[in-house]
C-alpha cells in the first residue's frame, strides 16, 4: 500500500513462554478507520503497544510513519501519533487545563489549542477542576482530548468508548469520522462490536495473539457465509405458496399467522428476493437481517476452537 501509515510484517511478541502476538501481517492506510476486535487477552493491547514502540517485537518488523517506533530515533515522530490507553490514569492533583498544557508543550503545540480542544470534547466547564473530581466519562473525554493534540496522523484508541454514555459515544464517533475524513489513520479496539460495525472501514479479528480474519464487513460476511434471515409480513392465505417458491434456495418457518422467517445463504439472497417478488401476493413488509459483527465474531471464535 503506497500510503500506508502503519505496517507490520510477521510480527510476534512472546513474554516468556506465552505468545501474546504471533505472526501478524497488517497494513493500515491513511484516512482509514480500522476496528480491532477480540476477547480479553487476544493481543489487541499488545499490538497497539508494538505500534507505539512501548515494546519491541520478538520477531518481525513494525513501521509507523516510516520508522521503527521502538528505535531511539523515533522519539520526534511520536508527535504525530495520538494514543488513548485502555486503563487511563492521570496525575490526580492537576486540573484538566494544566495536564493538557503539559502534554501540549511536550508535543510542541501552542498552549492556545488547549481550551478549544477541551470544549470540543465537552469539558469546557470542568476545565479548571482537578482531575480527581472527574467521573469515568470525563476522564475518558480528557484522554481523548490529549490523543487529539497536534492533529495526529495515526490515532490508536484502546477501548475508547468504555464509560461513555450513548450521547457521548455519538459525539465521539463524530470526532473520529471527521479525523478519518481528514486523512488520519484511526485504529479502534473494542468489545462493543455492534457499535463498530457501521463505523469501521475494516475489521481485524484477533484470537490468542493471531489475526484470524481481516477485511471489510461485506468481505467477512462472504468469508464466514453465515445465513441471512429475511422476515416477511404476508396475508393469511399465502403461506402455501412458499414451499415451492423457496425450493432449493432457502428454508422457512412460520413465526406467527402473518410473519414468516426465511433463512438462506448470503449469495442466494437476491435470488430469494426475486422469487418472493414474483409470487402472486402482496408483501406487507420485509426486513433483511445480515449477520452482525457479533455473530461473525462468535463464528470465528468457534472455528478457532481446537
Amino acid at each position, binding site marked *: 500500500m503506497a500510503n500506508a501509515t502503519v505496517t507490520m510484517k510477521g510480527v510476534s511478541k512472546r513474554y516468556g513462554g506465552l505468545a501474546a502476538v504471533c505472526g501478524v501481517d497488517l497494513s493500515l492506510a491513511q484516512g482509514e478507520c480500522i476496528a480491532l476486535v477480540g476477547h480479553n487477552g487476544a493481543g489487541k493491547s499488545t499490538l497497539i503497544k508494538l505500534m507505539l514502540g512501548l515494546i519491541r517485537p520478538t520477531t518481525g518488523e513494525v513501521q509507523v510513519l516510516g520508522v521503527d517506533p521502538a528505535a531511539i530515533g523515533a522519539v520526534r515522530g511520536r*508527535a504525530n501519533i495520538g494514543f488513548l490507553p485502555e486503563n487511563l490514569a492521570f496525575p490526580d492533583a492537576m486540573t484538566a487545563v494544566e495536564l493538557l498544557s503539559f502534554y501540549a508543550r511536550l508535543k510542541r503545540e501552542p498552549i492556545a489549542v488547549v481550551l478549544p480542544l477541551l470544549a470540543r470534547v465537552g469539558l469546557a466547564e470542568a476545565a479548571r477542576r482537578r482531575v480527581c473530581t472527574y467521573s469515568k466519562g470525563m476522564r475518558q473525554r480528557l484522554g481523548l482530548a490529549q490523543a487529539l493534540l497536534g492533529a495526529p496522523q495515526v490515532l490508536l484508541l484502546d477501548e475508547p468508548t468504555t464509560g461513555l454514555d450513548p450521547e457521548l459515544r455519538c459525539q465521539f464517533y463524530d470526532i473520529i469520522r471527521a479525523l478519518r475524513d481528514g486523512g488520519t489513520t484511526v485504529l479502534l479496539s473494542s468489545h462493543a462490536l455492534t457499535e463498530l460495525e457501521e463505523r469501521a472501514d475494516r475489521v481485524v479479528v484477533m484470537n490468542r495473539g493471531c489475526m484470524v480474519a481481516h477485511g471489510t464487513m461485506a468481505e467477512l460476511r462472504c468469508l464466514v457465509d453465515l445465513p441471512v434471515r429475511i422476515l416477511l409480513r404476508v396475508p393469511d392465505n399465502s403461506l402455501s405458496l412458499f414451499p415451492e417458491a423457496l425450493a432449493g434456495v432457502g428454508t422457512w418457518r412460520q413465526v406467527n399467522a402473518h410473519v414468516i422467517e426465511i433463512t438462506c445463504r448470503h449469495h442466494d439472497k437476491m435470488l430469494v428476493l426475486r422469487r418472493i417478488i414474483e409470487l402472486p401476493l402482496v408483501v406487507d413488509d420485509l426486513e433483511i437481517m445480515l449477520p452482525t459483527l457479533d455473530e461473525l465474531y462468535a463464528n470465528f471464535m468457534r472455528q478457532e476452537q481446537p
Partner: protein
Amino acid sequence: MITVLILVINEVRAGVRNRWVVATTLLMAALALTLAFLGSAPTGNVGVGGLAVTVVSLSSLTIFLLPLIALLLSYDAVVGEIERGTLILLLTYPVGRAQVVLGKFLGHTAILSFATTLGYGAAGVALVACGGAADASSWHAFLAMIGSSVLLGAAFTALGYLISVTSRDRGTAAGLAIGAWLLLVLLYDMGLLGALVADQGRLLSVPMVNTLLLFNPTDVYRLFNLSGFDNVSQFAGMAGLTGQLQVSPGALLAVLVAWVAVPLLAAMLIFQRRQF
C-alpha cells in the same frame, strides 16, 4: 533540553501540589532550628551555640534524615507511575526515556535542594541573629555543608531512581529503598567498625579504610563536613582523623558527584531497555 525542562517544571509543580515541598522544608527547618538552639549541649551548655557546632550536629542529622527523605521521594517515582498507569501515556509522547528519568530526577532534586537550603539556611540566619558565634570560616563550613547536603540528597535520589526502575512493583521498591537506607546509613559503618576491631590492624591498612569509606556516600559526606574544616573537626572529635585522611575535600566532592551520576546513568540505561 526543553523537553527535560518541561518535565522538571511538571515534577516540581506536582511536588508543590501534593505538599511534598512544604512538608520537607518545614521538617528540615524545624530540625535545623532545634539543633541550632539546643545542639550545643555536647559542648557543655544549653543555649545558642556557635555556627561551627551547628555544622557538626546538623551534618550528623543530615546523614540519617536526608537519605531517608530522598529515598521516600524517589523510590515510587517510576514504578509507582507505571502501576498507576500514568507513565505509559507519557512514554507515547515525543519524550525520550532517558529524558523522562532525567527530568523527574532533576525535579525531585530541585525540591530536596530547595527544602535543604531554605531549612538549613533559616537555621543559620536565626542562629546568628540570636547572637551565635560565627566567623568567616564557620560560614564557609556552613555553606559547604548545605552544598554537600544537596549533593548527598541528589545521590540518594539517584539511588532511589535506580531502585524504582529495576523494581517490578511498588512494594519491592519500598523494601529495597529501606534496605538501601539501612545498609548505607547504619550497617556499613557498623560492619566497618566491627571489621576494624576484629582485625586489630593486621590486614586493614589506613588507605584501605579510607578507600572503603569512599564506597558509601554518607561516609564521604561525613568526611567532607566533619574533617574538612579545622574549626569543625575540633568539635566533631575528628581532628585526629584529619591527619590520617589522604583524600582532599575536592576529591571527596568529586566522589559524591560520582555517587549522583553513576546510579542516575544506570537508571537511565535500565529504563531505556524496559518493556511495558
